[in-house]
């Protein structure tokens, strides 16, 4: 009798696991299927994506599409553009959000509440025409057609400031006090004592911004007159427009632009996921 209930319990557990795995795999097909299909299109030269019946799995593999599209489009240039824009954006965001968030987390000063109110108000009253005003501002600064013009409007965000503030709040106050006892200036305390402790927070902002700048396509097109300066995502829209029926090339080009960010994500997902989850508290 006892053995019987035990084995039925085991059966129940096994069945539960089976159901969960089936659901997980079905969902994975739904979320990953489109990417795998794109990969298979990119690996089969000359394939028509609208063929009937559609070839979903590759029957052969060749890298011709990659070689040809790499020769046709100046990928190294677009990759360098993307890397420069992304690096600039990430550095600005880390630098500015750390500096702005630190006093909000640790200092007592006049106007603190005012700054808070201002920051939160921007989240409630969004600007639907921000891009138009940014365009005018960038033109007024004579930064049109420059990478700086692409980066500056997104150089700091309220979201990142709150995220960093949350990180600074987690640092014990005695660290700053002990620094003061030794006669260190606020700047020195910040750079030498506090900053090394918030590396995880910095990593999260870095990752979020790498993804944001890498994938940004519209604003670069608006600011940059010269397509030679386009980042990958923007260049890709150009490729799609030019060769809408060379499916293999477009698929290969898209894979080239998407793979780096997926690799970055897979290697850093631990920090990234923690950061996303932590942001909700901020």
């Amino acid at each position, binding site marked *: 009798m006892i053995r019987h209930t035990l084995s039925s319990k085991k059966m129940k557990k096994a069945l539960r696991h089976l159901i*969960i795995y089936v*659901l*997980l795999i079905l*969902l994975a097909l739904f*979320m990953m299927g*489109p990417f795998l*299909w*794109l990969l298979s*299109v990119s690996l089969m030269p000359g394939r028509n*994506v*609208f063929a*009937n019946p*559609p070839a979903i799995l590759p029957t052969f593999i060749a890298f011709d599409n990659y070689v040809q599209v790499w020769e046709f489009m100046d990928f190294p240039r677009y990759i360098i553009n993307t890397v420069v824009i992304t690096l600039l954006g990430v550095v600005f965001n880390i630098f*500015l959000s750390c*500096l*702005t968030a630190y*006093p*909000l987390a640790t200092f*007592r*000063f006049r*106007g*603190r509440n005012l*700054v808070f109110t*201002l*920051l939160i108000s*921007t989240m*409630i009253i*969004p*600007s*639907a*025409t*921000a*891009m*138009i005003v*940014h365009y*005018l501002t960038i033109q007024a600064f004579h930064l049109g057609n420059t990478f700086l013009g692409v980066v*500056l409007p997104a*150089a*700091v*965000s*309220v979201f990142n400031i709150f995220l960093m503030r949350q990180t600074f709040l987690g640092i014990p106050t005695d660290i700053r006090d002990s620094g003061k006892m030794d006669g260190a200036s606020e700047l020195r305390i*910040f750079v030498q004592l506090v900053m090394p402790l918030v590396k995880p927070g910095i990593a999260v902002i870095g990752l979020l911004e790498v*993804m944001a700048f*890498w*994938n940004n*396509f519209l604003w670069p097109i*608006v600011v940059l007159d010269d397509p030679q300066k386009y980042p990958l*995502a923007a260049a*890709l829209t150009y490729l*799609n427009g030019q060769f809408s029926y060379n499916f293999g090339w477009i698929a290969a080009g*898209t894979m080239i*632009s*998407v793979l780096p960010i*997926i690799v970055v*994500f*897979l290697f850093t*997902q631990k920090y990234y996921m923690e950061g*996303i*989850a932590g942001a*909700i508290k901020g």
Partner: protein
Amino acid sequence: MYKAIRSESFAAWAFMAPGLLFLAVFTFWPIIYGVPLSLTDYSVITETHFVGLDNFTRAFKDHNFLISLWNSLVYVLVVPVIQIISILMAILVNSRIPGVKMFRAAYYIPVVTSMVAVALIWSWLLGNNGVVNYLLLKVGILSEQVSWLSTSSTALYVLMFITMWKGLGYYMMLYLAGLQGIPADLYEAARVDGAGPLRLIIHVTLPLLRPHILFCTVISVMGAVRVFDEVYILTKGGPGTSTLTSSVYIFQKGLEQFNFGYASALGLIVSVMVAALSVLVFRLNRRGGVNTY
């Protein structure tokens, strides 16, 4: 003591100065400058005049603008769907079984890839002779091909589907963080009281997820009202005006036709509506709880 606070004040403002400067120029200024701009006929080409409230009276007679507002409002219907599915996904990937982390990462990949790539893939899949039509015909759900993105009655919903597909992983992770904050003994206690899985979800999980649901709903509503990328890449508002959302219309008026004054007026109207909508979500949540949406 007073002196200490004063020196701290100086240090604080010195630290914040660069960041606040950037925020002033690129976050506060667009909100403020939109107002005077909306009272002019500013465009790059012609001389600028003060036109009073003309832009606003014009806006409310502008048929396309009203349609774009309506479409943006319809787009918000995607919010409850996203929230329900992503909560269910979070519950699923919260199960402690081997390999579950791999699945979490897999579901997140659409979030980190660019909309340009996502839009391209779906435009192929959804083409006339595309894979989606093939599969639906095969299963018998459809009796003839549907041009999903170039039929006015389906295009908007297809775009909403793509928005959902790309966003599910993001909300799933937020809800997962919420689920992992729920103490296990609460479930234990409810189970001892004889609650089944469904009742556990309704009486334990959902009430405790409420702050997360509120947060996710607000950002999701804002995202839906301001949807731009997928619409602009895939349909540019067409066919006709069937997918014209307010952001796309403002972009067309402003950065394509250079009617900066008029576009700012439209933007101001939309901003006020978005602010009202997010306040409304907060209110609803406070009063009705989870069942409200």
